[in-house]
């Protein structure tokens, strides 16, 4: 049976080649959408590392383009001024808040000449862990103990600890930024957090390091304030908050946003490409379904004499039906095998890095195989049924 099918398929090879090519392309498109979606699902399930609910961010905009430097008095005036508001439970300073579009990164090395570990960085003051609910798995968060430390104290995430100190305890270790004999800066690990993905649920995990904010010693001011507010604080608190901030510094402007709203807009920007690609892919599949249906219909029409002959020498209607569906199944399988052979190069060569890892690849491959098989079987059902109903006499006389 199988050999017969192969023979029949081979006899119409140029035509079948075009059909398989079409199925192959459709497979690749479904695979792309499935991989994209599954990766997002995988990321969504990974730990985020912080609690964004009931946290508001205030961007301080002095309108000086970063020239003026904040000193301890500035930070303290905000801390004291805002602590008086009953809604505010905690105030922390950083330069890059969660769900922000900006990043700061550097190439870290264990010592000069060793392998570089690309790391995202943020300045953080002593209160940030409490405000964001960071989960420390080793060591401690920054505190007064770090005053006057020779190296800059940092808290890193576990991913970075594993990248920088594989198989070792990260606590107390040193690393440097930059290369060359005289590195600009040395850092000492005082704590390790479980995870920290500042770009939100749908962003890939990165190596992350918090550097302790010490006014005057930093390259960057921490111009973002994060406020832990009382649960259920409504948006109209913003006006009173703004009025209070203006009392503290009248000539500066402040941009206030709950983290929940930055989260919503971040997720929107991240999912829009998926939605657009998904819609277009949906249209493409619809088109492929129509095309396959039409091509199969014409195929069976042309092969009526052949089918008649088979019926005449004893094949039942179910046999014919099975033949048509099995042929289509084989065609799809050939296309899918070729498609997989091509697509498997992506995780093998690491073209998409971590985003296309094996679980995602396998999931996407299974999902797209299911879709393509379903599609081609659906397209084969009606033409097959039509062919199987032909009476042998009519079919043999068909012109």
């Amino acid at each position: 049976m199988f050999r017969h099918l192969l023979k029949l398929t081979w006899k119409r090879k140029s035509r079948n080649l075009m059909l398989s090519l079409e199925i192959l392309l459709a497979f690749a498109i479904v695979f792309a959408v499935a991989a994209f979606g599954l990766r997002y699902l995988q990321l969504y399930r990974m730990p985020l590392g912080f609690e964004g609910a009931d946290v508001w961010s205030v961007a301080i905009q002095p309108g000086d383009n970063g020239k003026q430097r904040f000193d301890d008095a500035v930070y303290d005036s905000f801390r004291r001024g805002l602590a008086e508001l009953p809604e505010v439970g905690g105030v922390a300073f950083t330069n890059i808040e969660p769900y922000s579009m900006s990043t700061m990164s550097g190439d870290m090395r264990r010592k000069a000449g060793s392998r570089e570990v690309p790391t995202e960085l943020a300045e953080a003051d002593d209160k940030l862990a409490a405000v964001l609910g960071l989960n420390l798995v080793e060591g401690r968060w920054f505190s007064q103990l770090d005053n006057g430390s020779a190296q800059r104290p940092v808290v890193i995430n576990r991913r970075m600890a594993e990248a920088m100190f594989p198989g070792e305890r990260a606590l107390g270790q040193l690393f440097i930024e930059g290369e060359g004999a005289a590195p600009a800066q040395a850092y000492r690990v005082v704590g390790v957090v479980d995870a920290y993905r500042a770009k939100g649920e749908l962003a890939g995990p990165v190596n992350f390091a918090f550097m302790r904010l010490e006014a005057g010693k930093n390259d960057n001011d921490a111009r973002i304030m994060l406020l832990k507010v009382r649960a259920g604080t409504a948006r109209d608190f913003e006006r009173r908050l703004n009025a209070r901030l203006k009392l503290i510094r009248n000539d500066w402007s402040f941009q206030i946003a709950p983290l929940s709203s930055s989260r919503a807009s971040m997720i929107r920007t991240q999912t829009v490409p998926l939605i657009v690609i998904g819609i277009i892919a949906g249209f493409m599949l619809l088109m492929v379904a129509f095309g396959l249906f039409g091509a199969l219909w014409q195929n069976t029409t042309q092969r009526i004499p052949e089918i008649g002959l088979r019926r005449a020498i004893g094949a039942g209607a179910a046999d014919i039906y099975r033949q048509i569906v099995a042929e289509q199944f084989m065609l799809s399988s050939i296309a899918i095998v070729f498609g997989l052979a091509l697509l498997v190069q992506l995780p093998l060569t690491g073209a998409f890095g971590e985003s296309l890892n094996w679980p995602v690849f396998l999931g996407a491959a299974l999902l797209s195989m299911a879709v393509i098989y379903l599609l081609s079987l659906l397209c084969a059902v009606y033409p097959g049924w039509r062919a199987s109903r032909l009476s042998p006499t009519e079919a043999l006389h068909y012109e």
Partner: protein
Amino acid sequence: MFRNYLLTAWKVFMRRKLFTAINLLCIVLTLVVLMVIASLLETAFRPSGVEGKSERFLQVFMVRMESPGGNRVSNTPLGYKLIEKYLKPMPGVERVAAVTLPSSVSVYQGPNVSELKLRRADADYWKVLDFTLLAGRLPTAADDAAGRMIAVLNASSARRLFPGAPKAALGQRIDVGGQVFEVVGVVEDAMHLNAYADIWAPISTFASSDYRKELTGMFTALVLADSAADLPRIRDEVARISRSVVHDDPKAWKTMRFWADGKLDLFSRILTNSGETPDSGAGKVLATIAVAMLLFMLLPALNLVNLNTGRILERRSEIGVRKAFGATSRQLAVQFVVENVLLCLAGGLIALAATAGVLAWLESAGLIPYLRVDLNLAVFGWGMLIATVFGLLSGVLPAWKMSRLDPVHALKGAV
């Protein structure tokens, strides 16, 4: 001759209505996607609506600074000082406008907080762009000089803040991030690179006047020329000016480079990140878009090829007769390609109507705020061009196969 082609084509299309419908549907689906993209690009880059003068203005959007060692590079928007001191005095231009990029601000009204996009613009901005004024007036140079706290709203925001006719908003006071502005004008919604915002205020309403001393900041400059022919000269002039600018801190930043670009150039420059050369990479971007569109057509074209191959075999007796009476393979191939292109053009017309529907949906769904796309003649032309390319792409292979049929076998009905 051509009439005969048309007649045959019509007969063939009507003979198998289901397949014609499937064919058409595939063509329409493909063309709708491509036409939506084409019309969005057309609206973005052709002078239209509020940026109707964009054929004769250039803009300076980014400054690229390099450190003396060349190891650090910074790309930032312009500062007001750069525009006021270096660009505004430029000779031979109609005017130079300064406007900030849109930034999020909160507008407080009692217990309500609305988040709006604010731009601060000088009086020239209103002369460079053609906003449609619905009520009130636009800020003038006198307002700038006096530092009056006035604001212009767009129609949607005016309706949201002050329900009713646009006039209802005039004279009202709004608290924007702690600063109180008086609404003096309401303009129509506009979605364009330099027009997109909800609320506009004069530059002089900044809480502190530090912006006047900065070479980099958050401004963009619009340079309006007297005529489109002046643009190359202005480009050179701006490039010359950029070489003469010295940073306030020459130890940190040695060179400052900026370019005056048209809209397409600007977009390409940002996309290809080519800040150091006069060439914006627009050619490369256009080529990429064309290639992407062709690639997108690949699957639908293959689909159509498969459908068409089947149809040809159905017509083999017709082909046999025509060959027996002396038609050459080439004539047959041309006939088939013409038929296919005709079908695609018909599909293109339907797709154009569907595109109008999709765009209307996009406008109402608010996926892109204030989007207004008009389907003009240019979009129609692009649509037909895309349809023809698609018809050729999907018709040539079946036509070649058809022309190779052996007349004897074709007449007998055997393949």
